[in-house]
């Protein structure tokens, strides 16, 4: 395990700048999640660290060693791809053993067998070890490809949306399992996703990417509570943060746009809003409101019923203020 440092890393493909001047420190033993929509440069960042892509500018250090000119094999990284990563002509067992048998590790066969059995147990696939890789369900395939990374003890694990192709139940299970394994091994892990729940639940650090740039980096709580822009604020939180013109609430305000998390709306006083719809989710109720033509979402007590078209008074509580371009002011 090791610390990984990115210094001013850039990569361009033709006319598109996939990653722009990115600097980031991934501390030893951290679980860092890169969050961003498709095309934000998340996968490219992983591929640059793994050595599958060459840097245009900047430096990458793994455990203090500049790896700019090293091959992927020399960098000692393990990677889980989003898809297509199992070798179709090999059995599950051989797939899991493949990295251990590499000319770099040359693990003795007894050790290979022990590690493969151990990983198969963790991922609940011991009965599938002799299957061909193509004879697995999607969930099993993805577990094997996670397993193929976990059999090793690399400087850093790189994971590219490893859970995105799984069903909700398995995703929730593996999320907990992955976090547990990472905690037990004390491994450094860089994880890419566009799923904010994965980010919030597993990460020790979250990095938010926007068009190839790292716009904010911090603990999930910091990024959630103290976002630096509308963009970052919108990436975390379910339901999404409400971004509204500040003058809707009258009085003194500190910027043209106000950002209100659903839980940061006080009911009972303030401006009048009309209830459009109430969604009962069991543990919480979401209220969809209309405020002078703007839609606003808030959370409320799960045991109260709200009739549509009722008027509800709301006022901001702990609001965030942004300028017209979306940058955080206060």
């Amino acid at each position, binding site marked *: 395990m090791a610390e990984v440092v990115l210094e001013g890393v850039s990569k361009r493909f033709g006319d598109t700048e996939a990653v722009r001047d990115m600097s980031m420190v991934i501390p030893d033993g951290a679980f860092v999640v890169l969050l961003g929509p498709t095309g934000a440069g998340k996968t490219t960042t992983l591929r640059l660290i*793994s*050595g*599958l892509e060459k840097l245009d500018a900047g430096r990458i250090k793994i455990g203090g060693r500049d790896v700019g000119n090293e*091959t*992927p*094999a020399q960098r000692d*990284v*393990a*990677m889980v*791809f989003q*898809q*297509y*990563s199992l*070798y*179709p*002509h090999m059995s599950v067992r051989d797939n899991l053993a*493949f*990295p251990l048998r*590499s*000319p*770099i*590790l040359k693990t003795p066969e007894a050790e290979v067998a022990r590690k493969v059995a151990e990983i198969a147990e963790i991922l609940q696939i011991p009965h599938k070890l002799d299957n061909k890789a193509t004879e697995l369900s999607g969930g099993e395939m993805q577990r094997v490809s996670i397993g*193929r990374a976990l059999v090793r003890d690399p400087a850093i694990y790189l994971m590219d949306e490893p859970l995105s192709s799984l069903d909700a139940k398995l995703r929730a299970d593996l999320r907990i399992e992955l976090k547990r394994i990472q905690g037990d091994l004390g491994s450094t892990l860089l994880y890419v996703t566009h799923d904010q729940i994965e980010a919030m639940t597993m990460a020790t650090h979250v990095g938010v990417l926007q068009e190839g740039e790292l716009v904010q980096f911090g603990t999930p709580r910091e990024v959630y509570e103290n976002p630096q822009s509308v963009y970052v604020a919108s990436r975390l939180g379910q339901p999404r943060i409400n971004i509204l013109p500040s003058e809707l609430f009258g009085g003194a305000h500190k910027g043209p746009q106000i950002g209100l998390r659903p839980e940061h709306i006080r009911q009972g006083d303030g401006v009048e809003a009309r209830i459009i719809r109430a969604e009962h989710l069991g543990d919480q109720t979401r209220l969809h409101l209309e405020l002078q033509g703007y839609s606003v979402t808030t959370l409320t007590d799960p045991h109260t019923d709200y009739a549509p078209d009722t008027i509800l008074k709301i006022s901001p509580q702990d609001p965030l203020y942004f300028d017209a371009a979306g940058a955080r002011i206060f």
Partner: protein
Amino acid sequence: MSSFSVTETSARAKWISGTLVILYALITMIPLVWIMLTGFKSPADSISYPPKVVFEPTLEGYVNLFTTRTRQTQEYLEANPPQNWADEIVRQYDMVIVGPSKFGQRFMNSVIIGFGSTFLSIFLGTLAAYAFSRFRIPLADDLLFFILSTRMMPPIAVAIPIFLMFRNLGLSDTHLGMILLYTAVNISLAVWLLKGFIDEIPREYEEAALIDGYTRFQAFYKVVLPQAATGIASTAIFCLIFAWNEYAFAVLLTSATAQTAPPFIPTIIGIGGLDWPAVAAGATIFLLPVMVFTILLRKHLLRGITFGAVRK
């Protein structure tokens, strides 16, 4: 595999198309069957009119194909009784077997040159196709077109320059010369076909192998090659069929040492009269290796033919 669906064909349509296919197969197989039957006819039966479909089979053609014979005096024949069944057959013409013919050696030349050039085409073709498929090569499209363009004229159009070149390089009538020539003709087909097959193998597999601790070359032979096996097999057959059947260059460039079977078989006609059964026997034996190969690998071959026409 395919994402489109085709409406179910009716039983009648199946019956009609089945009949047509069988009919077509029968028509195309008639010359083949004729050659094979002629190989087992006596010379008299082979030229009888109307042609005989039912006849008494004999191995005379095969004996004549593999041996050289001379006529002998009655005294000699009486003093030396026949040693085996082959001797018996030639005795009816007052002949004795004096040694093997050149057919075996010509057939071996075909094997060496055919398989040698196929191996070389596939070896070079796979490496080139992999490079074109995976690496950013300057002017890759132009290079690929250039490689393809070597197929745009009939190879025999450059027969005279090649003949002169071979003579100056000392490659005339050598196995090496013919292997190089057939490889040069086949390589364009091999590169294009194999590039298509390798393009279909997702890069993620090799990238995973690179990260798993393997070098680019190890990733190539441990991960890409096994998955390209069917493509390689079908490409190999196409290369082999060309090299095996090639006649014109073989006539022009080979004679005593490296002559292959195609130019040799017709010369059998000249040895001791019109010996059609021997020619037919030679043709039959010559056909066998490619036929067996094609039947064994027919599934891959079909994929090779339809390759590119079917979107996954």
